[in-house]
């Protein structure tokens, strides 16, 4: 943190060459393609006297020096090489001698220490009782598939119809005739065999064959599809992602049955080899957004990754920012809606949350329910949510500012009521507010961590401490209890978890500012926040788009237009398509017909 501050201060005085690096911005890409402004427009770019644009001059003047490795990178390299001790063995091709292959694999899999790697040797009666073996991981592979579709055909059924010729290619027969499983792959190196086995597949090694057959037998333990835990709706789909990669993808595929839905696979983490998919709609999503995200994903070089939350921090635009620059959701319907509007989604094995980018502040305040209800109701709950954002951030600060700095603006009766309630309280307002907010944060954190059996306890203790007892003991005033309760309720209305943390933390910043300079401090905080948010980008898209910069809106910011007038796709992601529905859906309705005529 100190070094960060020092870097900031240094940057006020010193010019580093990397400041000329262009941040990714889809707006700018479009602009650079435009004609240069001014008089010298018409095709005289070859004119030697003409000056180049200043940006180009800057770039050529400042070249990046070759960067030395950081300590962390060196360590990572070293660790890679340590793996490489056995990595040399991994690179060997598959031998035609089954004993060599098995010895090599046993060594690499640390057998016999490693108890869940199963090596089962047997013979295939089909052709001269050829020796063979299968390798799989107990628990990762489905043993019923192995028994019924691998071992049974090879050991028993192959006995029935033996070939007559001597020079027979047993490997091809096994692959094409004997193993009736849906996916197979041929591995010619030990590394590929290992990759298959650790992914839950079964490797069939056959003597006198220099190839190994990898058979799809994945059988990881997975949770069944359940309700969304954090993004509940009253009306709308009730299924949510779980930790299974394939099931999550299937939930999306089920909703978009189109060939244009592309799922690009990546393997993230050189040790964990976690599956990750980048989802987008071919022909809809802006290609620059896709290639930028692809670039960022490929840049991830880590040993392991456990959740998409880490991916969010690795590929996000402002890693230190309190406001999230990508959206994590557990709802497949949400992902579907965003994909259709030209966003991209990321799904990772082992994580029940999909990431959506680019995202705007408005997207963080929306809930899928807004769309499923009547537009008036949808708009109403959105307005409530926007108000509650400000209430959650500012109310305690507002209370401090009014009581400490601007008591004149409170009507006399209310002023007297507040004064009377505070008469017996020995602490200054700021101490009172901080105590109560802290107590509330404790309850919230405890409520999350407490075993569910003891859950009700926390409610009783919390309500008693925060409410009655604190007031009766003259530690806090009753009005403050209302203030804290109001802020707590407000922060729970934010549909996005990361964004509700933003509200929680910003509240303390504003409490601090209000305690120094009252309303002036709050105004200061709001303007600084505006500067920060207007400068933020999510995958090249301004976080406040389409309000600032102002773009033609799709009627889906705070107020929501009815669905029959959502004819165009939001333009801020610069999608490749313009429309997502026909102009007049309700042809049979004279009112709608008249309205569309009026629009055009």
């Amino acid at each position, binding site marked *: 943190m100190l070094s960060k501050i020092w870097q900031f201060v240094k940057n*006020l*005085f010193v*010019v580093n060459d990397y400041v*000329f690096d262009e941040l990714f911005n889809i707006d700018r890409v479009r602009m650079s393609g435009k004609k240069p402004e001014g008089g010298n427009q018409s095709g005289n770019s070859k004119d030697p006297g003409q000056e180049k644009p200043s940006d180009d001059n800057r770039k050529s003047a400042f070249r990046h020096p070759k960067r030395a490795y950081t300590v962390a990178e060196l360590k990572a390299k070293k660790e890679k090489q340590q793996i490489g001790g056995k990595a040399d063995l991994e690179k060997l091709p598959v031998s035609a001698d089954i004993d060599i292959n098995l010895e090599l694999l046993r060594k690499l899999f640390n057998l016999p220490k490693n108890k869940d790697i199963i090596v089962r040797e047997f013979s295939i009666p089909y052709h001269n009782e050829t020796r063979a073996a299968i390798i799989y991981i107990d628990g990762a592979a489905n043993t019923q598939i192995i028994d019924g579709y691998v071992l049974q055909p090879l050991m028993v059924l192959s006995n029935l119809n033996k070939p007559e010729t001597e020079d027979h290619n047993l490997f091809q027969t096994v692959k094409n005739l004997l193993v009736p499983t849906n996916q197979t792959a041929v591995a010619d190196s030990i590394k590929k065999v290992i990759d298959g086995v650790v992914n839950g597949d079964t490797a069939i090694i056959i003597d006198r064959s220099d190839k190994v057959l990898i058979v799809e037998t994945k059988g990881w333990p997975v949770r069944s599809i359940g309700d969304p835990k954090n993004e509940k709706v009253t009306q709308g789909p009730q299924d949510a992602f779980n930790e299974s990669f394939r099931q999550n993808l299937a939930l999306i595929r089920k909703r978009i049955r189109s060939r244009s839905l592309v799922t690009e696979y990546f393997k993230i983490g050189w040790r964990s080899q976690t599956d990750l998919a980048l989802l987008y709609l071919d022909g809809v999503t802006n290609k620059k957004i896709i290639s930028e995200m692809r670039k960022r994903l490929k840049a991830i070089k880590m040993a392991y990754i456990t959740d998409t939350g880490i991916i969010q921090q690795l590929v996000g635009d402002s890693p230190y920012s309190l406001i999230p620059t990508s959206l994590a959701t557990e709802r497949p319907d949400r992902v579907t809606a965003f994909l259709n509007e030209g966003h991209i989604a990321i799904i990772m094995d082992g994580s029940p949350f999909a990431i959506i980018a680019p995202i705007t502040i408005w997207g963080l305040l929306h809930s899928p329910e807004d769309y499923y209800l009547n537009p008036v109701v949808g708009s109403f709950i959105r307005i409530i949510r926007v108000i509650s954002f400000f209430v959650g951030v500012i109310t305690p600060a507002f209370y401090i500012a009014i009581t400490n700095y*601007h008591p004149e603006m409170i009507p006399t009766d209310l002023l007297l009521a507040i004064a009377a309630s505070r008469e017996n309280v020995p602490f200054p307002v700021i101490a009172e507010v901080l105590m109560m907010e802290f107590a509330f944060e404790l309850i919230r954190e405890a409520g999350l961590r407490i075993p569910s059996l003891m859950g009700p306890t926390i409610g009783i203790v919390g309500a008693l401490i925060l409410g009655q007892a604190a007031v009766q003991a003259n530690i806090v005033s009753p009005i403050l209890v209302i203030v804290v309760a109001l802020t707590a309720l407000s922060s729970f209305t934010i549909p996005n978890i990361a964004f509700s943390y933003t509200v929680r933390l910003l509240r303390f910043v504003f409490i601090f500012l209000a305690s120094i300079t009252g309303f002036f401090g709050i105004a200061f905080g709001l*303007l600084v926040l*505006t500067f920060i948010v207007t400068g933020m980008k999510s995958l090249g898209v301004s976080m406040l788009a389409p309000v600032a910069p102002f773009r033609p809106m799709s009627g889906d910011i705070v107020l929501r237009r009815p669905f029959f007038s959502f004819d165009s796709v939001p333009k801020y992601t610069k999608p490749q398509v313009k429309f997502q529905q026909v102009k007049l859906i309700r042809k049979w309705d004279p009112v709608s017909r008249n309205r569309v005529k009026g629009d055009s």
Partner: protein
Amino acid sequence: MYRLKEGKISSNGIFGIIVILIITKVFLGIPRVAVQEGGSASWLLLLMSAGIASAGVFIIVKLIKKFPDKNIVDIAETLWGPPGRVIVAAVMASIFLYISTVVVREFAETILTTVLPRTPISIVTLMFVITMVLGAYNGLEVITRSVTLLIPFILVGITSILLLAGSFIDLNNFFPLLGTGIDKLVVHAPGRSSIYIDIVMVTLIISNVNEPEKIPQQVWKGFLFSTAVFVVVQLFYVSILTIHAGSKLYIPLFQLARIIYMGRFVQRIEVLYVFVWFFTGALQLTLTLYGAVTALSRGFKIPIYQPLLFPLGLLVFSLSFVPQSTLHAVSLDMNILRKYGSLIGFGVPAALLLTSVVLRKGGKTGEKQKTN
């Protein structure tokens, strides 16, 4: 955090920038000074000064049209050579530094007088300067977007003051219609055209605008809109507070907010307007500080302006304490800057335009000669 690109803005952004740069004065002394000089015809005085300022705006627009791909320091170099570049840059930077310094002091004093009587002025000034530096550091794109986002709130704020205080309107206060007399109006109007000199900022940021050919239209729109705001506020001010009270108030609009009384519950809500005050003031100051550093960095061909920000911010902070008293600061603003400022603010572009006409330089002129 290292967002050191200045960013491009759309031509619509120019409208917001001009409105913010100009209407800030409505919160400071302009309504009072106008009443002092024009009496009940103060709105006419402002209208006349806008008429005179429109000549200055015309000059600026003409200059932009003549050199659509150059900012004012480049134009100066083309016409007057390298010394011209340095001189114009220094003059521009000085104007904006002067505006920043005086206005930051005035706003700090305003905040102190109205809502924070016991807070040291250095704290308030420091908070203003932090906002200015932070905003300008993030570049023109961020400032313009913030302006676009906040202008509706500011306008709603002003409108609500006028409407809520509107219950005290007395139309008799408009009479006599010519106020202090047509001769005095004519004498004072040219000086008050200095209210609009901040428009010269546009000539510095031409290269940051996406469609330069649309700038003139936006400049005129911004100018007319700001004039309308001035005149409307002045009309309300004179008719509500009378010329006697109106000529003696330190912070005119604050007084309007203060007399709001809509039943027992909605009264004394003037502190709420601190938000409008601060947003407007800080945005204008951010823009003027940005103008000062841009003028310097472009004038001296420094590729980025950010390293200049901190020193200049410090300079503004220190210089704002130079005026000995509130009245001294107000007089530096109203009796010097907003009286003679147009000589420099509009004078420099006028001189450049004159030179270009005499020397027959500039894109459009050349084209015209060809077509003729």
